[in-house]
């Protein structure tokens, strides 16, 4: 029998659990109440089971409704009428299981992707008023073979490749598309060209380099579709599994389970990986399997800037963490004052904690940088930077970001800038720095769009290029915090 006083304490902690505001000390207290007390454990299990059952039931209902809508709309979902079900009974269980397995994956990703999901409009291709009869084979071509090593084709392409199916039996072949994207394949590989913006891999291994201007270019397999420009990644489609590994930039991968009939969207950044088995079960928490793609990558063009983890989705956090966002380096200044108790930086969950953090423009979380001024006049601040390629002379860079301000904290000035430097020394020479180009009001976010013209005769040509962001301490004592999300850097084409 559970004591009444203990039940009151348990109720308070269980409410905190249900409201997702349980902290470490409360967790310890909860354990203290539960340990070696079967009655308290049963009470706890029953109460949290009710809360989680509500979540499960309502989410399942929502998913069922979504499936119903998709069925109505005729989207490829499993056969529903009894006759078909009998015919494909062997397929039904995998679907049911995949649906169950994927349900929470789907729901969590849905939660993450419905807000701030980036849709890249396909490039509007200029229409060439060419009479069909006048079209030549070259105009019909979608890609050309630019490199070939020991390639054995089932049917050797005669010149540039037009729409159709191809089978590379052995060796390696590299294709270049009109938009500048390259796809390198290792045989055996079966693939299909459908139009100038899509490459379909039926089976085999490839690496793809998609430059920033190739917006809308998609590489697909039966279960995964990758659409993000300014990236380099590898894709392997085997009999039982599809593997994806990101080498540069940050991608959006859409997973389409044959059985579930619903799409899930994942964001992956440099060195991340993902695997999808043929039942649609997704594993995202894996390191990109670069060995699988060894020898296929072309030398990367470091003159094309590519920001990794510009969405600050990694590492994923439940509330906030003072770990460096993946791909970025965090520094505290001055180092002598860099006590964790004094200043912090990292990633923070958007919105839902009642902490006044605005919704994240891209994904579910922001990066944050703190600055602190002490009563004795000392101050500390944090900065973060990332190497994004090499400095190119005579071009215009466009640097975009979203900045936000948490409610309840004083306005925080910040600097955002481009620096030249080296891998060993980090960012050293300032190319251009902007001070607080936008100062968001409390609880809000504002976009920042900055351009930098790199001189034709810059002494920093081919140095490493860095994006650097830092928080600036205020004049008065206190902690200030700037939130940053969706950082992008590109070279503007004339």
């Amino acid at each position, binding site marked *: 029998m559970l004591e009444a006083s203990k039940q009151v304490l348990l109720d308070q902690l269980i409410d905190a659990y*249900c*409201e*997702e505001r*349980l902290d*470490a000390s409360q*967790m310890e207290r*909860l*354990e203290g109440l*539960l*340990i*070696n007390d079967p009655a308290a*454990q*049963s009470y706890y*299990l*029953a*109460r*949290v*089971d*009710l*809360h*989680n*059952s*509500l*979540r*499960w*039931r*309502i*989410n399942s209902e*929502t998913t069922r409704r979504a499936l119903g809508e998709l069925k109505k709309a005729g989207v490829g979902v499993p056969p529903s009428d009894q006759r078909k079900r009998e015919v494909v009974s*062997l397929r039904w*269980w*995998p679907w*049911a*299981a995949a*649906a*169950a*397995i994927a*349900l*929470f*994956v789907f*729901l*969590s990703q*849905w*939660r993450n992707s*419905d*807000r701030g999901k980036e849709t890249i409009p396909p490039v509007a291709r200029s229409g060439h008023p060419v009479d069909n009869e006048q079209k030549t084979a070259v105009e019909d071509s979608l890609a050309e073979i630019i490199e070939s090593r020991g390639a054995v084709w089932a049917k050797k392409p005669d010149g540039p490749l037009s729409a159709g199916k191809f089978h590379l039996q052995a060796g390696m072949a590299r294709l270049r598309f009109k938009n500048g994207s390259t796809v390198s394949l290792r045989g055996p590989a079966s693939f299909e060209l459908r139009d100038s913006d899509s490459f379909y891999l039926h089976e085999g291994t490839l690496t793809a380099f998609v430059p920033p201007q190739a917006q809308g270019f998609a590489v697909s397999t039966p279960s995964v579709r990758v659409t993000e420009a300014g990236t380099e990644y590898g894709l392997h489609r085997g009999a039982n599994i599809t593997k994806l590994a990101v080498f540069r930039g940050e991608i959006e991968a859409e997973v389409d389970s044959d059985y579930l009939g619903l799409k899930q969207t994942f964001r992956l950044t440099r060195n991340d990986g993902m695997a999808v*088995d043929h*039942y649609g*079960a*997704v*594993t995202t*928490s894996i390191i990109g399997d670069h060995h699988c793609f060894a020898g296929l990558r072309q030398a990367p063009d470091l003159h094309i800037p590519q920001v990794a983890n510009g969405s600050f989705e990694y590492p*994923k*956090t*439940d509330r906030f*963490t003072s*770990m460096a966002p993946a791909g970025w380096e965090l520094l505290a200044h001055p180092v002598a004052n860099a006590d964790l108790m004094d200043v912090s930086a990292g990633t923070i969950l958007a*919105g*839902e904690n*009642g902490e006044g953090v605005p919704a994240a423009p891209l994904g579910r979380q922001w990066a944050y940088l703190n600055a602190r001024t002490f009563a004795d006049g000392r101050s500390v601040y944090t900065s973060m930077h990332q190497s994004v390629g090499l400095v190119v002379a005579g071009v215009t860079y466009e640097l975009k970001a979203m900045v936000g301000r948490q409610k309840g904290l004083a306005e925080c000035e910040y600097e955002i800038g481009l620096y030249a430097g080296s891998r060993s020394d980090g960012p050293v020479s300032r190319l251009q720095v902007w001070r607080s180009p936008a100062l968001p009001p409390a609880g809000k976010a504002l976009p920042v769009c900055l351009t930098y013209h790199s001189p034709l005769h810059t002494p920093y040509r081919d140095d490493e290029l860095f994006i650097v962001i830092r928080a600036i301490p205020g004049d008065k004592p206190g902690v200030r915090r700037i939130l940053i999300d969706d950082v992008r850097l590109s070279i503007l084409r004339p």
Partner: protein
Amino acid sequence: MMEPFEADETRLEQCLELFARYQQRLYLFIAAMLPSPADAEEVLQEVNIVVWKKFEQFEPGSDFLSWVYRIATLQVREYKRRRGRETLSFSPEMLDQLMARALRDETVLERRREALQKCLEKLSPADKQLVDRCYAPGAKIPEVAEQLKRTATSVYRSLRRIRQILTECVNGELAK
């Protein structure tokens, strides 16, 4: 008693059937050990993968639930070890005790889940609507509160009251 698997295909079907049947219970068990839904969902995925890979080791006819709960407990420990202080969970000893208790209480918990469905239907339309909104995928209480022109605190209070009503209703159903 389950028959020994005669062919791989049958075995695959068995595995998938068990997966589908126990997925909700597995999630609810993991969520009881990890307060953060994001952590629970991630561990559920990992457990599914482990169960899938180790299914060969599962003794047909033995207790599938005990087997997957054991895997889930180990996976929660491993997840906590990997994520460090970032993840809130219980000590290994507490996790073992909760696993044993959850297995013992499983029949009662399952009956409570069935009763919950009836009790949800008894809620007033306003309460039912609030539950639907607050437990919907991606719902955030401050946003729901804003839409309802209420404070987040008042919505949290209403949810506490509704959970209490449901708990009492479920207890009543079980006592019948």
